[in-house]
């Protein structure tokens, strides 16, 4: 039976194996390839999306678990926090190979949406699940601070 969900504000109906991870449903069936495969075990964060605004590893989230829910991917990222994060990412030239950066940005924007002025410890806690083999971590940290500084403290929303 088809599973209904909302992806980037668009209603979607998917007739796939209910166990299929959201990651592969997004990539292979909805052609939303901005969300990346890195490990398949929620170890690297490359597949991070927002489910009802919460940063979630889509590689271990069965599609059946998101029936009726709102999913946001990098392609649909909007709102003040998301835009501020992307602006800071470009401004500081964070990406190198860039493969993990969709996941990094989704984790960072969820962090800022809930915590307008994260400390370094907050950043460590929110971002330690996202691996970057190019080790762009110094710039990721700087970009999160820059994005936070660009947002009015009371207005940060994903």
């Amino acid at each position, binding site marked *: 039976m088809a599973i209904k969900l909302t992806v980037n504000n668009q209603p979607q109906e998917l007739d796939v194996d209910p166990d299929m991870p959201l990651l592969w449903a997004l990539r292979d069936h909805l052609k939303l390839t901005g969300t990346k495969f890195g490990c398949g075990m929620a170890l690297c964060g490359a597949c991070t999306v927002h489910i009802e605004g919460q940063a979630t590893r889509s590689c271990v989230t069965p599609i059946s678990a998101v029936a009726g829910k709102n999913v946001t991917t990098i*392609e649909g990222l909007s709102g003040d926090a998301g835009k501020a994060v992307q602006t800071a990412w470009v401004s500081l030239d964070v990406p190198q190979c860039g*493969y993990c950066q969709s996941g990094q*940005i989704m984790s960072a924007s969820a962090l800022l949406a809930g915590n307008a002025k994260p400390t370094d410890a907050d950043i460590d806690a929110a971002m330690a699940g996202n691996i970057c083999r190019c080790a762009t971590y110094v710039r990721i940290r700087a970009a999160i601070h820059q994005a936070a500084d660009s947002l009015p403290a009371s207005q940060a929303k994903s």
Partner: protein
Amino acid sequence: MYLRNIEDSLATWPPLARLAANITRRDFLKFTTIAGSGLTLGVVIPAVAKSTGLTVLGIEGTPGDYSTPFVRIDTDNTVTVICKHVEAGQGVWTGLPAVVAEELDASWSQMRAESSPAQVPTYGNFAFGPKGNVQGTGGSTSMANSWDQLRHAGAYARAMVVQAAANRWKVPASEITVSDGVVSHSSGKKATFGELAAAAGKLPLPKDVKLKDPSQFKLIGSEKRLQRLDSHSKSTGTQTFAIDVMLPDMMTAVVLRPPRFGAKVQSIDSAAAKAVPGVVDVVQIPRGVAVVARDTWSAKKGREALKVTWDESNAEKRSTEALFKEYRQMSGGPDAVKVEKKGDADAALKTAAKVLDFEFEFPYLAHAPMEPLTAAAKLSPGKCEIWAGCQFQTIDQANAAQAAGLKPEQVTINTLAAGGTFGRRANAESDYIVEAVSIAKATGGNYPVKLIWTREDDITGGRYRPATYHHVTAGLSQDGKLVAVKQDVVNQSIMAGTPFAGMMKEGVDPTSVEGGTTEQYEVENAHVTWTQAKVGVPILWWRSVGHTHTAFVKEVVADELAAAAGKDPVAYRLSLMEKHPRSAAVLKLAAEKAGWDKPFPTGKAANGSFRGRGVAVHESFGTVVAHVVEVTVTDGSVKVDRVVTAVDCGIAVTPDVVRAQMQSCIGYGLSAALYGKISLTDGRVDQTNFHQYRVLRINEMPRSIEIHIVPSTNPPSGVGEPGTPPIGPAVANAVRAATGIKLRKLPFDLAAAKATKT
């Protein structure tokens, strides 16, 4: 450098020889204009690389209808630099366009980058050999290789745009100026490149052009950062990697490979796999059994249901523990070959006042790029098309042709951005690309195939940095002078038995020992040997290759010699580097910026932690890097608090990319020093994914990294690798300063090292 002059050894290798035979050597700096709507500058080679017009998600349009250009100015006022090197994060899509933009006096905002087709010698790597008959990225050569070509390309383009303006305005070309992408005349007339491109494209090529004097550079070396041309696409999820390629009717495949290296398929029971919904085929290929399905999840489920029995009679069944035991026994033994010999090290050691003995062990390491290996292949009659983050384009082309039963020129290579590689995508067999082609062929070429390696495939799939053993004996005179060094290295050869074997000299694989001779530190008596281990574990170059272990050994030994001599580690190194002023200057700069001459609170702190400071300096791939690090050791775990780096890479074309690469090298090297290890038990790889193959995370990255670039007017060398070798030993030296613990095995295990008498 390990990839220098590979072309001669490759010329004897059948697939590539066939490719080379089809190409007439031309003067690679002979530019020409190519008909088009704008100005296109290329070299005189008749072949044309055209897109098939297939849709690749995320790429707008198709590569243009052009013949082998370096630079294209379109009527929409964009300037596109056609990059022959893969963008794998190291910044070539920014650095190479910067070279053109400088000579062209373009505006940075109009610059674009795209990958070239696979074609030699047009896009050959001249750092790999003067004939340019191999296209590839490696050895940190991209900038060095493209520097002269692209400066000329930019200068020719500028001259032609200026001439077009002179003709249009009927003024002498000498009165025309170009700045920030605008062509102007004192009369007030102005035009963009785009407005002049069509007319410029019809002009004859100027006979000669004058390159700028480096003192005239506005963009190159500027601290006013040039935005990376790929930052936006990589911050919005719109950059297309091979894994994102979607072709009509395409199927996705995963491969079940043997659990032990060298095992072969004995029998296949594919009934359960074929019963998985979405699975369309199960086929045997030379390297395993492929499950082909309508989507990735179905392919993975199919593979889980697949039953294969393996013939393991020729498989590697040894454990890494047993291998190191063998390496220790082989070291300096009858199979050892000479790497370096001067003076009489044995005699000098007998009379030395102090002799120090060291043994080091380095594990296998997986590259683990964030994008696992992926390639899409499409076969049609007489044609094969590949989409991948190719690092060895013409080698991949030749291997794909052989797998497809075609000629190399029938294979089109689309080089996409690679989601990291660190050397993994550059291998003589083009393993993952050949797998994709083999699956497409085994399924009758009925549909395009995208092969995806899972992370488990990546971690267990081999082609690791070779496990390596070093034994060093060093002697000091009464006054602390280094009088003799003996070093025996044991590891597998990356080159032996491959098309690169021709690069081995006198039986020595340079990639096994590079950086391990006594070139940096002067010593009268030296004897260095290498013993080749024969193990059935596939190995490969891993970011900075042999330097990953030789620099560690050299710099840890240097530090302990300084301690034994009662000298400061920086001063002691400098005393041995009189003939290496460039390296010495880099070391001095790092030490000065780190405040090395100021007291550091070394040892046990009030909170029970230990603090220490360490240094290392190493030259690799023509670039010298020194790191000074400050560490805190708490309950046996090492935290790097601060890194001060100095780098001499010749002219730093895009300084911010240089800094980014130093940061990246530091993080990548720390992963290896602190955590990186692939081990085998009875031939089976123990690690499968990031929970067992641990890599550095954001909370473990040094918070403070300062990078200082040595001003230089020398031509640029590379920065993708050279920051990696010295970070591990700098940290080891800091740990010893902090705790007295001598780290001889990687990754660091302080408790084990403390318990071991060294």
